[in-house]
């Protein structure tokens, strides 16, 4: 097996001999398709994906938000305040850390890749989510909206939103699936301590999909007083762009840090993808650097073949969910299907429209790993690096097992360590109880 074609779908196959690429695969994407002006275009579309499939009631609010964001980015007072808070409140820049023992683990006789971890887990509140929550809270203040709502899956976006609302004295309501509240009980307590109201959502599958629907219904009802801090690069335009732009600080820092650490661009970027915000934040400043491979890793749950998974890009069909056209897990009649993942943050049947676009034009590659592969990776990272990654992030780590054997020695890989795993220790204990000596 030779070089992997660009944009090919990589699937973990433990029986296949490890292919080794000596060169970076040349990308054949039309550069015009990567221009910032078409991501999104004036209609809020990334190719066929994106758009604004929402009730009419929300259209003026989306227009207001788009205008407010455009104006804010032009205002030095806004960007200075954001940067000041990112540095002193969030703790940025986060380190780019060389995972020497992981390098060792994947080293072959002739050498191996170098793995760098972008330490978003070291942000205040323990994940990348606060980059966006902080930015949107500042926008809400500019728009004069005093009530904030948000959806959350793993609870990380809910905690980040509750945190910035406390910081700025904003009323905060977090919608969370009842099933996720059970899985992420610690984060529920954190949100409540921070003064947020956590509204359990029991409709449908009682997970992130339903929490998002309920948050949108709240917004439709209270749009005149409320800002919705959507937590992923999903939802109606301008959210996919807005959330990406607030997370792009991840990629901007990474680019600079790579230059400092090894004097050039990285070769491969790897990140987990649920809705896709941490991946998009890392990828965004590299999209036009086509020598850089972009790899998103989805949750295969019990296995893609079982139907119990959250591998939207791998298995989804084009559809509309939560206001955007994107790939979507759905049945033959267009009913949205339940997603399954050990990780609440990846347990979502949709995905951000720009990821669907990258898949379609071949700019990024997407694969999927199972719950058990993610759990194994989580343990490996704990033991080798002394870092407990979030279960979401563990999916990106698990991809290294199939990726690293294909990489030439000296390949520089950056993996987005999107969040810390403290919130997941109960889930992990349930799965690994005996192995942990309980």
């Amino acid at each position, binding site marked *: 097996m030779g070089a992997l074609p660009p944009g090919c779908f990589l699937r973990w196959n433990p029986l296949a001999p490890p292919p080794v690429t000596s060169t970076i695969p040349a990308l054949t994407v039309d550069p015009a398709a990567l221009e910032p002006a078409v991501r999104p275009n004036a*209609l809020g579309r990334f190719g066929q994906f994106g*758009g*604004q*499939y*929402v*009730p*009419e*009631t*929300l*259209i*003026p*609010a989306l227009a207001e938000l788009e205008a407010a964001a455009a104006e804010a980015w032009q205002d030095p007072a806004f960007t200075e305040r954001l940067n000041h808070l990112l540095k002193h409140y969030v703790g940025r820049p986060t380190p780019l850390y060389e995972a020497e023992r992981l390098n060792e683990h994947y080293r072959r006789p002739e050498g191996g890749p170098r793995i760098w971890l972008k330490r978003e887990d070291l942000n205040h509140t323990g994940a990348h989510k606060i980059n966006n929550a902080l930015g949107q809270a500042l926008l809400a203040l500019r728009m004069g909206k005093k009530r904030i709502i948000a959806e959350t899956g793993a609870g990380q976006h809910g905690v980040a939103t509750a945190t910035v609302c406390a910081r700025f004295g904003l009323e905060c309501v977090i919608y969370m699936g009842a099933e996720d509240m059970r899985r992420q009980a610690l984060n529920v307590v954190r949100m409540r301590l921070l003064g947020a109201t956590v509204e359990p959502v029991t*409709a*449908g599958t009682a997970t992130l*999909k*339903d929490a998002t*629907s309920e948050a*949108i*219904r709240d917004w*439709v*009802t*209270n*749009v*005149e007083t409320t800002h919705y801090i959507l937590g992923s690069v999903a939802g109606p335009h301008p959210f996919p762009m807005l959330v990406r732009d607030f997370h792009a600080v991840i990629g901007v820092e990474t680019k600079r840090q790579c230059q400092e650490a090894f004097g050039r661009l990285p070769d491969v970027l790897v990140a987990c993808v649920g809705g896709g915000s941490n991946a998009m934040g890392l990828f965004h400043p590299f999209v036009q650097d086509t020598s850089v491979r972009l790899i998103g890793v989805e949750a295969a749950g019990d296995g893609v073949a079982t139907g119990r998974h959250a591998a939207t890009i791998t298995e989804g*069909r*084009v*559809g*509309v*969910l*939560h*206001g955007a*056209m994107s790939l*979507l897990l*759905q049945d*033959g*009649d*267009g*009913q*949205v299907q339940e997603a399954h993942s050990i990780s609440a943050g990846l347990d979502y049947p949709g995905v951000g429209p720009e990821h669907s676009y990258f898949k379609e034009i071949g700019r990024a590659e997407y694969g999927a790993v199972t719950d058990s592969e993610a759990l194994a990776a989580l343990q490996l990272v704990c033991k080798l690096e002394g870092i407990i990654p979030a279960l979401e992030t563990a999916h990106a780590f698990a991809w290294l097992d199939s990726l690293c054997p294909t990489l030439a020695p000296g390949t520089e890989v950056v993996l987005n360590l999107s969040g810390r795993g403290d919130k997941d220790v109960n889930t992990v204990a349930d799965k690994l109880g005996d192995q942990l000596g309980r």
Partner: protein
Amino acid sequence: MSADAISPVAGTATLIKRCFARLKQEGRCALMPFLVAGDPDLATTRASLLALQGAGADLIELGIPYSDPLADGPVIQASAGRALTSGTTPGRVLEMLASLKGELHTPVVLFTYSNPLLSRGMERFCQEAAAAGAAGLVVPDLPLEETAKLSPLAAAQGLDLVLLVAPTTPAERMVRIAAASCGFTYLVSVTGVTGTRTSLEGRVEGLVQQLKAMGPTPVAVGFGIATADQARQVRDWGADGAIVGSALVKVMAAAAAASPQEPAPATATAAAAFCAELRAALDH
């Protein structure tokens, strides 16, 4: 030129336009009940459609159940959930509707979210809906900007694509929506999702007047009309139609739950009784 060569819709008013034209001559406000197809089963929906026709409905809005109804409150969400549980699909809804040809003369407007429509293929959906006898389409998560593809496909099949206006819609946008909406303009009476309200927002009156001044397209008010008094109020404010959804769905669900073995007759009777009450209020 033979009659067969003439398009069935070219040059003729649609079912909905003719309906509103007739009502205008009679000086009446259209009564437009909404129900979810397949709750608790399609036999019940079939019987209820005929019962609503018999009880004085002028147009009927028929909801195709969807897993993630963003614009709907708890009553219609629950109704859609029951319909999906009983195996209702868009295809079966259209089959049921087709089976009523010759019996159901009241124009039916299909209410569907974007994704089931896209999944079936917009062109195929429009063809099948028209073949089943539907008169129009309402897609609550398809604002004006996203209608470019669907509009001509619906028009080609003689289906009126009805657009919605909300209390938050700016006036200049309202003009464009009213101009693009076919059959009637659907005025959402509340800033919010579907569901019963104890009172209607006073600003609805102004919105109705504003919309009517923008052109000849009839204006029907929906979301939040639950009682005969509220229906009469929107008539008095100048609306051409009053859409009653959640309140009717609630009445029907209670009747169906009381007769789980054979829900159709009891549900249809309850639907007819509520519809007749609204009819009397509107004609009073």
